[in-house]
C-alpha cells in the first residue's frame, strides 16, 4: 500500500516536469521576480500606438506597472521565505504558497501584456527585446515557484479493475489534490499584540493602500489595463491571503471595528478628491448605489434567507417616488419637495410597497417565494410602463419615464454645480458620490445594528430552521415581514438618490436581468459573489459586478458569457463568496477545522 502511494506521488512529482533542488528553486523564484521588476524599466514595444506607452527606457508605463508590482510582490515574499530579518512579518502563514500565487500574478500579467501587444499591433515582431526579457523572467519566476517543495498528500491509486472513465476520474481527482496541496498554506499564528495606536495606524495604512488600488481600478483608461489589473489584483489578493496577511488584517479590524469602519468611509470619501474631473466619479457614484442596494438585499437574502428575485423594484419605487415629487416637468403632480422630504418619501413608499408585497407572499417558503417575488418585480416594471395616460392613469409617463429631474439642493448646497473646498474641486458627480456615501453609511449601520440584536438573531434563526424558530416563540411571519420591509426601505433610499444622479427614471432600468448592472439578477449575484450575511461582501461584490461590465464594454455580448463562466468557476472554488461569513464557510466546507470558537462572526 505505502509503496504504491509513493509510486503515485513520485510519478506526479516527475509529471510536473519541474525537478529542481529547493535552494535553486527558491533562488530562481526570487531572482526571477527581481529580474521581472528590472525588465519593466526596458522598452517592451517600439511604438506608442499600444496604449500606455511601453516604449520608454527607464520609466515603466501602463501594464508595466502592474507587472512591476507583482514582480516586486514575488521578490518580497521570496526574500521573506529566506527568513530575512525585517521581512518575516510579511508571511505569517508561510511564504511558499504566497510566492506561488505572486508568481502566477507575474506570469499571467506579463503573458497577457505580451499577447495583447502582439494582438493589437499584429505579431510578435512588435515586441522589443525588453518584452522578451520580461516574459522569460516571468516564466523563470513561475518555474522556480512551482518547483518549491510542498507537503504531498497521500493518495490512493486508481483501482485497475475500474473502467477507463472511472480511472480517469480518479486520477483527475488525485491531480486536483496535488495541486490543492501545492497551493495550501497553514493558518497564521496569532500576531503579537501591538499598542492600540500602532494597530490603528496599520489599519489606516492598509485602507490607504486599498483606496489606491481601488482608485487605480476605477480609473483604468483602457480595457487592456483593466484586464491586467484584474489579473494582478486577483492573484495578488490570493497571495496576500496565503501569506496570512489578510487574516492578520481581519483580526485587527475585528478588534477596532469602529475605527476600521470610520477609516473605510474616510478613505472612500477621499476618492473624489483624488480625481481631477468628474469622469470617474460618475462610475463611483453608480457603484455606490449598486453596492448599497446589494447590501440592503443582503438583509433579506443573507440574514433572513428569503430569496428575493424582484428586489430591484424597490429601488424603482424609491426612484419613481423621488422623481415624481422632484418638480420634474414630466411629473403630473408638479410639486417640488426639498430633497430630504423626497428621500424620506421614497423610502416610505418603498417600505409600503415592501409590506404590500411581503404580506401575501411571505407565507410561502423557498422556491415559491422566489418565483412570486420575480413576478412582482416584473409587475412593477410593466405597471410603470402602462401608467402613461393611455392604458392606465397618467402618472409615470410610460416608457419615456420621468425626465429632467432637477439637481438636489440640500440646505442651499447645490449638488449640480462644482464646488471648491480647500483647494479641491468637487464636481457634480463627486457631490453625489459623497451624498451616496452618507446613505451607504446609514445602510451599513442599519445592517450592523439590526444584525446584532434580538431581531437579527430571529432572522438567522428563521433562516436556519423556521419550524424550530417558531417553536422557540418567534413570530416568523412578522419577523420576515420586518426584514422584507427594511430591505425595501434601504433600497428606496438609494433609489431616491439614483433618480437625481441619472436625471431620468424609466421602467427599463428596473428589469430582472440585463447586461447593465442595477437589475435583480446582478444584485443577487453581487450578494452571493461577495459573501452572504456580511457587510463588506456585497459592497465588494457590487463594486466588481458594476466595474467589470462597465470596463469591458468592448467585449460586447461575450461579456455576459464570461460573467456566467466566472460565476460558475467562483461558486465551484469558493461557494461562500469573496468575503465569507465564517459560519457559511464552515457550512460549505465540511472538511475545515470544525471546533472553532466564533466571536463576531463575519459581519
Amino acid at each position, binding site marked *: 500500500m505505502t509503496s504504491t502511494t509513493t509510486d503515485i506521488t513520485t510519478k506526479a512529482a516527475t509529471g510536473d516536469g519541474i525537478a529542481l533542488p529547493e535552494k535553486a528553486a527558491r533562488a530562481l523564484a526570487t531572482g526571477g521576480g527581481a529580474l521581472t521588476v528590472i525588465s519593466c524599466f526596458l522598452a517592451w514595444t517600439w511604438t506608442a500606438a499600444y496604449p500606455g506607452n511601453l516604449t520608454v527606457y527607464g520609466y515603466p508605463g501602463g501594464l508595466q506597472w502592474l507587472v512591476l508590482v507583482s514582480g516586486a510582490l514575488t521578490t518580497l515574499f521570496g526574500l521573506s521565505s529566506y527568513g530575512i530579518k525585517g521581512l518575516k512579518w510579511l508571511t505569517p502563514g508561510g511564504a511558499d504558497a504566497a510566492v506561488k500565487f505572486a508568481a502566477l500574478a507575474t506570469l499571467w500579467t506579463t503573458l497577457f501584456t505580451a499577447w495583447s501587444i502582439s494582438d493589437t499591433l499584429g505579431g510578435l515582431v512588435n515586441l522589443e527585446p525588453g518584452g522578451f526579457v520580461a516574459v522569460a523572467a516571468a516564466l523563470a519566476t513561475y518555474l522556480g515557484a512551482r518547483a518549491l517543495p510542498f507537503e504531498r498528500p497521500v493518495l490512493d491509486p486508481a483501482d485497475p479493475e475500474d473502467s477507463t472513465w472511472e480511472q480517469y476520474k480518479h486520477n483527475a481527482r488525485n491531480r486536483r489534490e496535488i495541486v490543492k496541496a501545492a497551493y495550501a498554506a497553514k493558518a497564521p499564528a496569532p500576531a503579537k499584540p501591538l499598542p492600540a495606536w500602532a494597530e490603528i495606524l496599520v489599519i489606516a495604512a492598509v485602507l490607504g493602500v486599498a483606496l489606491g488600488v481601488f482608485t487605480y481600478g476605477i480609473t483604468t483608461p483602457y480595457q487592456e489595463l483593466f484586464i491586467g489589473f484584474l489579473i494582478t489584483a486577483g492573484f495578488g489578493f490570493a497571495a496576500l491571503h496565503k501569506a496570512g496577511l489578510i487574516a492578520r488584517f481581519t483580526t485587527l479590524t475585528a478588534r477596532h471595528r469602529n475605527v476600521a469602519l470610520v477609516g473605510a468611509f474616510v478613505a472612500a470619501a477621499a476618492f473624489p478628491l483624488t480625481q481631477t474631473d468628474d469622469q470617474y466619479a460618475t462610475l463611483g457614484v453608480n457603484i455606490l448605489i449598486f453596492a448599497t442596494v446589494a447590501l440592503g438585499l443582503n438583509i433579506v437574502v443573507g440574514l433572513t434567507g428569503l430569496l428575493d428575485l424582484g428586489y430591484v423594484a424597490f429601488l424603482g419605487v424609491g426612484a419613481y417616488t423621488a422623481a415624481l415629487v422632484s418638480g420634474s416637468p414630466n411629473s403630473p403632480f408638479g410639486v417640488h419637495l426639498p430633497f430630504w422630504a423626497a428621500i424620506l418619501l421614497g423610502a416610505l413608499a418603498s417600505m409600503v410597497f415592501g409590506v404590500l408585497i411581503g404580506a401575501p407572499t411571505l407565507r410561502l417558503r423557498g422556491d415559491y417565494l422566489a418565483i412570486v417575488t420575480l413576478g412582482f418585480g416584473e409587475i412593477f416594471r410593466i405597471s410603470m410602463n402602462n401608467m402613461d395616460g393611455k392604458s392606465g392613469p397618467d402618472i409615470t409617463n410610460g416608457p419615456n419615464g420621468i425626465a429632467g429631474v432637477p439637481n438636489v439642493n440640500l440646505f442651499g448646497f447645490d449638488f449640480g454645480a462644482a464646488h471648491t473646498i480647500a483647494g479641491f474641486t468637487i464636481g457634480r458627480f463627486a457631490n453625489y458620490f459623497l451624498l451616496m456615501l452618507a446613505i451607504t453609511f446609514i445602510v451599513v449601520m442599519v445592517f450592523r*445594528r439590526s444584525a446584532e*440584536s434580538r*431581531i437579527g438573531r430571529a432572522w438567522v434563526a428563521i433562516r436556519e430552521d423556521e419550524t424550530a424558530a417558531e*417553536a*422557540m*416563540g418567534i413570530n*416568523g411571519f412578522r419577523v420576515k415581514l*420586518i426584514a422584507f420591509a427594511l430591505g425595501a426601505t434601504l433600497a428606496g433610499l438609494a433609489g431616491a438618490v439614483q433618480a437625481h444622479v441619472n436625471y431620468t427614471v424609466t421602467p427599463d432600468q428596473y428589469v430582472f436581468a440585463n447586461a447593465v448592472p442595477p437589475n435583480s439578477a446582478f444584485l443577487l449575484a453581487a450578494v452571493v459573489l461577495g459573501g452572504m450575511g456580511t457587510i463588506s461582501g456585497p459592497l465588494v461584490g457590487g463594486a466588481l459586478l458594476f466595474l467589470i461590465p462597465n470596463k469591458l464594454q468592448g467585449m460586447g455580448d461575450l461579456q455576459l458569457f464570461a460573467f456566467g463562466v466566472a460565476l460558475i468557476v467562483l461558486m465551484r472554488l469558493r461557494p461562500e463568496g469573496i468575503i465569507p461569513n465564517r459560519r457559511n464557510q464552515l457550512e460549505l466546507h465540511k472538511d475545515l477545522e470544525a471546533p472553532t470558537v466564533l466571536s463576531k462572526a463575519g459581519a
Partner: protein
Amino acid sequence: MTTTTTTTAAPAETVLDARGVTMRFGGLTAVKNVDLTVRSGEIVGLIGPNGAGKTTFFNCLTGLYIPTEGEVRYKGTVLPPKSFKVTSAGIARTFQNIRLFNNMTVLENVLVGRHTRTKEGLWSALLRLPGFHKEEAASREKAMELLEFIGLAHKAEHLARNLPYGEQRKLEIARALASDPGLILLDEPTAGMNPQETRAAEELIFAIRDKGIAVLVIEHDMRFIFNLCDRVACLVQGEKLIEGTAGEVQSDERVVAAYLGEPFEGAPGAEEVAEVEAAEAHAEEDHEAEAPADTPADDTPADDDTPAADSTTSTTTDGEAK
C-alpha cells in the same frame, strides 16, 4: 419513587389540561380522544410503541398541529393555534430529532430562546435606545446562567453544530428553558445516549423540576421513565391505554402486551400461524396508510412483536375510520 413525596405536598395547580384531543389526518386517526393533565411540579411520562401518536400529541399541544377535536388549556386558558403563541404562553419544547440553529453559537441559540420574553424591537436596535443595552445584557446574563445550569457555559462561543450529540440535546433543553416556561415538553431527550449520559439527563430533568417547571416527557427507555416520572401515561394506537404511577403502569398487562405482544395460550398451531400472518399483512397495509401521519421513530422495540401488537388494535382504528 422518593421524588413523589416531595411534590405532592405542595398545593398542585393544573398546568396543562388536554381534554379529548383528537387528531385526524384524512381517514387516519393518529390521536384519539386523549385526556392528560399535568400539575405543577410534576414529571409526567408519555410512553407507547412506535407510531402510537406520541409526537403527534406533542405537536397538538404545542400548536404545530391544530387538533381536530378537543382543547388544550394551559393554566386555565385555551392555547392559541400558533406555535410561537404557545411558547409565549409558557409551554416550551424540544424535538425528537435535534433541531438546533446549527450555524449559530451556543449562546446565540439560547438567546433566540429568550425572544418571546424580550421586547426590544427594530427601532430600539437601530437607534440603540437606552433600554437596548440593558435588555441585551440581561438576556445574555440569563442565557449564561442557563448554560451554567446545563454545564455548557465554557462552550458558549462554539457553533452549535460542533457540539457532541449529548451536548446538543442539552443545549436544546437550555434553549427551551430560556423562554421561562411553566411546562417543558421533552421529546425523547435520551435517544441515542449512553447510560452515563442518560443518568446525567435524569439529574438535569429533576433539576428542571426543582426550578418549578412541570415536565412532560416522551421516552422509550423504560428504566429512565420509571425512575423519573410521578405519573406515566401509555398511548397505544392513538388512544390512552392507562395512566397511573410508574408501578401501576409497569405491572399493567395491557402495556406489556402493547410493547411485547400477547403470549400465546398453549402451543402455536398451524391456524394461529396463519392468523398471525394475515394480521401481519393487514398491519402492513395499515402502516402504509399511517406513514405520512407519524414521524419516523428511530429505535424499535423487538421487531418480531410489533406486528402482533399492531394487529390487535388495527381493527379498532379501521372501525374508527368508517
